[in-house]
């Protein structure tokens, strides 16, 4: 995986849109070179949504004791897939997720579930007090038959 760009933002919900627009744009530039035009919109939307979800989670779980918290978004890619990592210094969390029980009208808890459904692989590692949530999706290369 080759690094593309890294963006560090203040952990504030005000900036969630910056993160997700950035993800959408990076995905679009990446997909432009790799996949057929029909799938680009869906590919980009998956990144826009997933980063929006992950960034929101990072901000929500930031400890209020450290107001100058930051969240880093790092993009890297290889020939066919694009990875985005969301890195924060919050406490450890459990990334395994299940579908929320919709019949109870839950107001939250959809975030990680959505990410898992939108992305091909989602991996979570904890290194030196940082959480790294990496989401990867394969750009669909449709073969002409």
């Amino acid at each position, binding site marked *: 995986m080759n690094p593309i760009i890294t963006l560090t933002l203040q952990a504030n919900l005000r900036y969630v849109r910056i993160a997700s627009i950035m993800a959408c744009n990076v995905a679009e530039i990446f997909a432009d070179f790799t996949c057929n035009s029909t799938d680009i919109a869906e590919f980009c939307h998956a990144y826009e949504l997933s980063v929006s979800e992950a960034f929101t989670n990072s901000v929500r779980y930031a400890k209020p004791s450290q107001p100058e918290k930051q969240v880093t978004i790092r993009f890297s890619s290889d020939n066919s897939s694009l990875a985005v990592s969301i890195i924060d210094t919050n406490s450890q969390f459990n990334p395994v*997720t299940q579908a929320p029980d919709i019949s109870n009208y839950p107001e939250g808890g959809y975030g990680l579930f959505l990410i898992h*459904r939108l992305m091909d*692989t989602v991996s979570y590692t904890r290194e030196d007090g940082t959480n790294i949530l990496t989401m990867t999706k394969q750009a669909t290369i449709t073969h002409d038959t």
Partner: protein
Amino acid sequence: MKTLLVIKKQEYEWLIDLLPGVHPLLVPICNKPFIEFLVDFAILAGSDALRIVSDGVLGSVEHYCENGSRWGVEISYGSMRPADDIYTVIEKNRRFCLEERVIIISGFLFIRYNKKSEYASLFTSLPSGELLSCPHGSISLTGTSTTKTETPGTLPFSLAALDSIGKYYELSMEILRTGLTHYVIPGYSSEEDCYIGRNVIIQKSAEIIKPVIIGNNVQIMTNSIIDSNSVIGNNVIIDRESFISGSIVIGNTYIGEHLEVKNKIAAGNLLIDPESGTSIVMEDPHLLTAMTQSRVAGALLRRVVHALGATFLILLLLLPWLLLRPILGLQGKWKRKREQYFTRLPGKNVTLTNTTIECTGVLSALAKALSLDRFTLLFKVLSGKLALIGNQPLPVNPAIPLLPNTHAVYRPAVFSYAEAEEWPEIGIDTEIVEHYYAVHSDPLKDIAMTQKALFYRTH
């Protein structure tokens, strides 16, 4: 003209249990997904837009049909609540139904039609209201006709409700026997009762009797017989000496050796009797093959052979690994990721280090050629956690906590049979190839396959 399809989950739910893994609207009838028959009909009737409305999940249907550009019709999707009646559904889709005439097909219905008949002008001239109905649904028309013509006494189409597996089977057989020319059926056909897909391998000694439909990527092995009135789906293997008659073999099914499938539906590891609805699970690996093999002795021998093979490879690759690993590590080309994978035992997982070598430069090319990325995995063979060659390990997916049961034979391994055969490493084809070899391999063949895998990975 537009067409509104209203299909409630409650009407198709029964099919989910019987044929799991495929959305009922995509269940193949004579190798063509159900929904496509309706799309074809809508187009024949002159529709330029089609909306599919359901209270159930339509994700995979959307994924399959997309926006309809493939058929030159605009397809959209809508949702409804289980309790909604047809008028509420029309209200919820008012914008869609506005201004034009709309054919409303409600229920999990198959429409019998004939592609040679003229439907477009018929539908513009028909008066509004219900055209046909049956206990499980109806077809009706909104808006007023532009031309004044006599309503024909009988309409050139009829309804067949899909409410049981028996009906599904009957309908498939009816189309196969008498209706193949009425519909667009996938596959190559030089005779009207025989359709064969792409990449079909039929052994010389195998016998095929019409009428028959065979899908893509099908292998029919030595001395097997596909008797009349059979539908073989895509990616199916019919193994040696087996006999298929009057049966539907759904895609991605493996039929083992010496089996007799008569008037049944085979889907994955399920065998269904359409008449009684009884189904048995062919999860017992022996039922997939001949019955007499001694499995235990084979398993032990296999383990020993695999361990010896792994030891050999470890000794061979140790020096290159010791030399190249630190260099590539320093260059940052050696990437590792630990992930959980399923083992053969349900509920037990194994953590494997997945190594990827960035393919730039001579050294990494060399490391890749020597399969050094799999080096550490070889030790798992010695401890019996992995086989040397077998299936590609399946990553544990939190959305699916258990090993999908389509893998009747699953042996996670360092190298996969698919790699040895140079099949694409993803997708359902791989599964079938791996399944085939997993059932057919013996320890000696395994060594040969490992060699092949090592060889092909370098090219």
